[in-house]
């Protein structure tokens, strides 16, 4: 199998799986559907690991590139590939996807077939976002992934699920529309300069757009990404969506979907609009700091366990945007690392809430107490994930937050001063939560009768806990993977940043350098994949 086919396979395997399940397995064969879906995502995860084998970690160039003409009349291509940033996010997505599916085994009891089909389609949608280097293609994936999530919340969610689902959908859609406008502006500007109709992201990297146009385009993209992150004050869809979503939905929402916003900033806003990025940076820093403190303070007072974790996400995502817009290598690397770390730790915390909810059917913190006595394994894993979320050295959260804070300190220590209070508050809300839920006397006989985690449940949490430790103790492999693309972006934003150091920043990937796949068989294979995916989407 050629390398680029492998990448496309990783992306479309879940959708193909969904198609197969839709066609081959009847509604009543719940158990087979469960097994099939879990095996598909697991295989997908293993396949994504294969990407590591042929990956060149020392370059910022795109790898596993597929480039096919798709709608030549308007210059749309099927253009996919990955760099270090995409690679790590793909691994995060396939891992969290497998875990989310595994966690649904007993949690979901109704409309099982549809549930798994939606989850699988969601996987493909998310993975597609991370590999698309054609704006049209990107936009399609970006929108497509909304649909399954909408249904996941709307059908399998809690009491107020419809409100949450529609709010999530419309809010995100509103942002997307603005992004579309921004993309079109780039499209026409590019044509006016180069005379070429193309939506190729890499060719936009080469443009020097006048600052005021940059300003407007940045604003358009900003709303789309800021809503997705979500940045303060666009965050209010998040607690609703999280609280209502089923566990797997929350895990994926927090773990991957939120990262789309920050990914968008890093992939598009920074390299295409470097001047506007610099101009907007202080503004975004202020919003980030507000998010950090505001999210933490509101999390502190939450009565609902899941809502607390949701607000903690707002706070943590504030750290990430702060790091990104420090616009230096430490901050950006920290931001990217924290995206992965947050996916692991907060994804894990949502699993924790889900496991408790599945047993007691309440998320009210006050209803719990003393769980540590009856669920020691649960208590241990919860502790590790909570500690990683609050950034304890030796665990993953520390590396990300530390790099972000040091990056922001390079930029402006005042920002760091304010952000650092976020880690104090994180300790407060997480430890207080832990105390109220796990410590103290057992509140009721019902709680006393709770079972500790079974093997399957441990298998959902243990990989995340181990990953948290590994990423905290040995972050180098990830940091090395992220460094070349990060340096390329920084050099683009701050030309000459690396002057006088022994680092020579790689260039941003260019459209010409990206190899064009020409083998016919492959072309048809990829077409088939794309068709199949499209077909599956139509069917739902």
């Amino acid at each position: 199998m050629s390398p680029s086919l492998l990448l496309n396979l990783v992306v479309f395997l879940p959708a193909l799986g969904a198609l197969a399940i839709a066609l081959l397995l009847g509604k009543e064969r719940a158990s087979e559907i469960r097994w099939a879906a879990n095996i598909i995502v697991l295989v997908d995860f293993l396949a994504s690991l294969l990407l590591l084998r042929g990956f060149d970690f020392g370059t910022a160039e795109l790898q596993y590139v597929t480039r096919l003409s798709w709608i030549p009349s308007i210059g749309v291509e099927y253009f996919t590939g990955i760099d270090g940033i995409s690679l790590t996010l793909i691994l995060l997505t396939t891992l969290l996807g497998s875990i989310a599916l595994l966690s649904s085994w007993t949690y979901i009891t109704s409309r099982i077939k549809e549930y798994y089909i939606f989850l699988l389609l969601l996987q493909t949608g998310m993975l597609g976002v991370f590999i698309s280097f054609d704006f049209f293609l990107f936009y399609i994936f970006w929108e497509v992934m909304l649909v399954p999530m909408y249904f996941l919340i709307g059908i399998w969610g809690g009491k107020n699920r419809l409100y949450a689902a529609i709010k999530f959908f419309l809010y995100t859609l509103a942002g997307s529309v603005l992004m579309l406008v921004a993309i079109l502006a780039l499209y026409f500007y590019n044509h006016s300069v180069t005379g070429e109709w193309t939506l190729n992201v890499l060719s936009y990297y080469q443009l020097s757009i006048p600052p005021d146009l940059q300003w407007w385009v940045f604003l358009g993209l900003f709303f789309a990404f800021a809503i997705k992150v979500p940045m303060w004050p666009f965050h209010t869809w998040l607690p609703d969506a999280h609280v209502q979503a089923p566990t797997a939905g929350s895990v994926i929402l927090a773990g991957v979907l939120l990262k789309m916003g920050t990914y968008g900033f890093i992939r598009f806003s920074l390299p295409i609009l470097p001047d506007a990025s610099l101009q907007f940076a202080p503004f975004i820093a202020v919003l980030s700091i507000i998010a950090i403190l505001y999210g933490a303070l509101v999390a502190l007072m939450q009565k609902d366990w899941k809502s607390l974790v949701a607000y903690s996400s707002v706070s943590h995502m504030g750290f990430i945007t702060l790091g990104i817009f420090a616009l230096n290598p430490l901050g950006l690397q920290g931001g990217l690392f924290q995206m992965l770390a947050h996916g692991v730790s907060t994804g894990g915390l949502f699993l924790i809430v889900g496991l408790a909810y599945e047993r007691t059917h309440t998320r009210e913190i006050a209803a719990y107490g003393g769980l540590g006595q009856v669920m020691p394994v649960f208590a241990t894993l919860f502790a590790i994930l909570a500690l990683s979320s609050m950034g304890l050295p030796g665990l993953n959260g520390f590396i990300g937050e530390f790099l972000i804070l040091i990056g922001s300190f390079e930029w402006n220590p005042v920002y760091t001063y304010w952000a650092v209070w976020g880690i104090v508050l994180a300790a407060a809300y997480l430890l207080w939560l832990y105390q109220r839920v796990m410590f103290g006397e057992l509140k009721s006989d019902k709680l006393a009768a709770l079972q500790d985690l079974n093997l399957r449940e441990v298998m959902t949490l243990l990989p995340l806990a181990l990953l948290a430790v590994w990423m905290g103790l040995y972050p180098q492999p990830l940091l090395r993977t992220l460094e070349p693309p990060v340096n390329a972006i920084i050099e683009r934003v701050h030309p000459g940043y690396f002057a006088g150091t022994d680092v020579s920043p790689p260039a941003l990937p260019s459209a010409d350098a990206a190899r064009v796949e020409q083998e016919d068989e492959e072309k048809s294979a990829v077409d088939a994949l794309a068709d199949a995916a499209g077909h599956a989407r139509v069917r739902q």
Partner: protein
Amino acid sequence: MLEYFWLIPLIPLVGVTINGLFASRFIRNENVTGIIASGCMLLAFLIGAGAFVQLAGLPVAERNVQIELYDWLDAGVAHMHDNEAGVTTARFRVSFGFQFDELSALMVLVVTGVGFLIHVYAIGYMKHDPPDPGYYRFFTYMNLFAAFMLILVLGSSYAMMFIGWEGVGLCSYLLIGYYYQKKSAGDAAKKAFVVNRIGDAGFLLGLFAIFFTFGTLDYDGVFAGAAHYSAGAGVLTFITMMLLVGAVGKSAQIPLFVWLPDAMEGPTPVSALIHAATMVTAGVYMIVRSNVLFSLAPTTMMVVAAIGALTALFAASIAMVQNDIKRVLAYSTVSQLGYMILACGVGAYAVGIFHLMTHAFFKALLFMAAGSVMHALHGELDMWKMGNLRKTMPITHKTFLVGTLAIVGVPGLAGFFSKDEILWNAWAGTHGSAWLWAVGTLVAGMTAFYMTRMLLLTFYGNSRMDEHTEQHVHESPPVMTYPLIVLAILSVIGGYVGIPANLQLGPLAALHERIDITRWLEPVTSGTRAQEAPGTGDEEHTAAVAAAPLQIVGAIGEPVTVVLQEERSEQAGHQDHTAMEWTLMLISTAVALAGIGLAYRVYAGGGVADEPFKRFAAPYRVLWNKYWVDEAYDAVFVNRIKDLGRGLWVLDDALVDGTVNGIANATLQAANASVEFDTRVIDGSVDGGAGVFWSGSRVLRALQSGYVQNYALIISVGVFVLVSAYLFF
């Protein structure tokens, strides 16, 4: 042994792994667990001791052995802030590296030595009749604590120190909350961690400032870079102030001391190990380690000294009236830590470490003896329900007596020497003053008072126990008393490693020639080694590390640094000093004796209650309520923050989300209006049109009247309105 010193922090982790993973399921034997945990500590101690001896055998210049285990954090290039070291860019690089020098070596011995004794003691202390299911957890955490504490003192950079720093904070949290079913324990644990986190935030800021000033976090590089600065440089003042915030949190100084008294919710061995002997001294260690920076920041030094002196006084005054035996010891610890910080603040770093060491001996002893009493009295903590225990608990009594005499400063015992050195330096040190000395001396008197009070109430006079308790009083088992005896011996002899100048007579002078803690620490505390240390940007060194992550790099066997040890010149006016030193020593001893005498007068009869204090009701109440600091903090900070959180939540719901929902509603209404408009005006006009358009209008109607289409319409109009709203408002 020296080349294996890096194993020291890893050995307790073996204990963590064994006890943490296997003890409760497979080993299922409390003694085995206890022995594994203690054995790890003993092994670490033995390696430490061996390495110490070997280190002492090296020439002074080579007594800094370093090792890098692997590259821990190696990220992008950073631009330095303006600095005088001339560094403009630097790569952020932290290796998982350890260093073993005079200071680390001493700290290792204290941590593992005292730690081992406390582990042994805990084997007995934690054993209860219905076995405590948390026994394994306890020893796992204890070993984990030891590992982090050893990382803290052995790390070769500020980043490594920070790992240990937060790690010990975590273990402290876990162990304070050991009896987690008790709400008070959970509260205390959380309080300890959060208050410490405030300090840690300061530490972090200091750490960042260090990096952007010196381009590295390695001690060697930082201290070498500091040579470019002159005293009083603003950035150094900032850095040291921030580090001080960290130290204040960890070492429980004003204003962040509030967590330590509450930390007594943990089992007593925890109080002895973490909240007396080792962890809380981390702040002192940090200041001493950073002495090169602190010495260049006179303003900070003033603040350090003031905080130390004030804390010593403040905590001692509270300790005078408390009745809970552990609480008195806790405030006493805060007070003694104040002494150590004071010593650092006047520039007597080695003396600070000296007191840290002797305090570790006698305070661990006092805590464990108090624990022994609690053990015998079914967890009783109130001294007014004890009394006359010297008959039934002779060993505990005698060791407690030794500990009391040592902390009070009775001449000849450990505390006398180290406290006297602090007071002398408070008077005569680089940043000393008569005021600092006066406060220190006053605290010596207060210490004597509350310790004597405690001794009398607990072990002398009449028994005030209820009958049931009294019948069951027993001396603790040997596993608990032997550590007490060892520590009692150390509390007696520990002071002779730092004999003050005026007492260097006859055999003491000879001893001083052989062993002197100040001389031992001098390469660290005088900053001489730092000046000669290699600078940053050692490319070959880096390449070697990158090539082989586990390769041992450093000065093992082949000295990297060569320091010419200057002959120490005797200070001028030695004779005057001696006379003055004698005077001050006699005064402070007299004050201590006065404190003992006062306590004896008041409490010797055994007393019935704190009768004499009825005469001083107002000040008594202030002290009894600990100056209402906790209440004030709750009122000013904790509750206000909660209010803020609650307020923001309301705001979030009403205003931020309200806006979103408002836009949605407005959109819906607009959509409804459009539908109305569509049906009545547009559709109506179409309907009203000529029949020619009949077929066309049918198509339109079909398109626009179904449910799905309506929905799509609402969405698109909604999006339009949203977009307009965002664009124009």
